[in-house]
């Protein structure tokens, strides 16, 4: 979808794009990824790609949350999880970036990134965003979560870029 105008979006999807496009600018400017957007009312997508790799931010309107995923663009990710419980399904996946992503200790990082008081405040904002449809509360939640996602990406930047660049070198891509 091209020529997307923020004014055409509902306030919640607009808050998602404005927040994440701002916080993830480093993916374009420093990491050399290209950005793509696909707005959709119940769940918009923001995608950054480099070669055949993608960092994806998927917005869930009903929960005002954003899912992060890293993978090769042509990998179809199985719905069943975790991999050790479904070895046959996961053995067919050959995707070093997705494998790296699965190893990231996101839950532990989240607990360390936000203090208990911050998490409690976030819970209050989430309630305002979802139940009261408070756009400013939704934006505040998205800002915090984007900061966390940016922190994760920066922290694991060497490993992520190693996978991306090694595969690019193998395939002769720039």
């Amino acid at each position: 979808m091209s020529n997307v105008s923020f004014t055409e979006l509902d306030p919640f999807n607009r808050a998602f794009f404005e927040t994440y496009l701002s916080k993830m600018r480093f993916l374009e400017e420093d990491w050399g990824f290209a950005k793509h957007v696909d707005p959709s009312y119940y769940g918009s997508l923001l995608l950054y790609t480099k070669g055949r790799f993608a960092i994806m931010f998927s917005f869930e309107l009903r929960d005002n949350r954003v899912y992060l995923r890293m993978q090769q663009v042509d990998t179809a990710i199985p719905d069943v999880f975790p991999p050790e419980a479904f070895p046959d399904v996961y053995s067919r996946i050959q995707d070093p970036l997705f494998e790296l992503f699965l190893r990231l200790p996101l839950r532990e990082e989240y607990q360390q990134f936000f203090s208990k008081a911050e998490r409690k405040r976030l819970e209050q904002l989430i309630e305002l965003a979802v139940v009261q449809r408070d756009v400013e509360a939704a934006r505040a939640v998205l800002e915090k979560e984007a900061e966390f996602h940016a922190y994760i990406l920066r922290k694991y930047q060497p490993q992520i870029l190693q996978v991306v660049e090694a595969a690019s070198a193998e395939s002769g891509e720039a």
Partner: protein
Amino acid sequence: MNALGRLLSVGSEWGSYASPIGGAAGRGLAREVAEEASETIGKQFARQASRELKPVVIGENMRERVVPFAQQKEYLTINDFVSNWSMEANAAWIRRMMREGRRIIDIGPDFYGRHAGLREVSCHLHRHAYALERYLLKGYPNYERAFVRIRTPRGIGGGVPGLSRPAGSGLIIEPFVP
């Protein structure tokens, strides 16, 4: 609406057959017969309509799971009915689907998302749409569970066997120009 339209047209048709009996009494009788017939036939057609109405899909993660699953099966989602979402609108939609007798296919939690997610929201009925939907659907006879749930060393896992999240290559679109 098509099913309802057919239902109404059948009642009218029955009435037109009955009306030639003649006179006011005949017309009254015809009306009674027509109404009774409409009611009986109406129930039959309502049951038939519920079978003909497309099933709807519920679950966590509209973008990556619910909508792709529904498209694959040619089913519908809340996306096809509610254009201005709120928890109230969501609850009203589920109640409407139940009143219509639709099959409601539950593809369950996003177990993968819960692993990668930042927060647990499913236990909060009042602020988690999927949890609310599950609550409202308790005891509904046309509810169908399409996912598996298993216990693993990492906690609860599961998902919909055979379902894949769409590959990203299909999502790459023209670069965004703000």
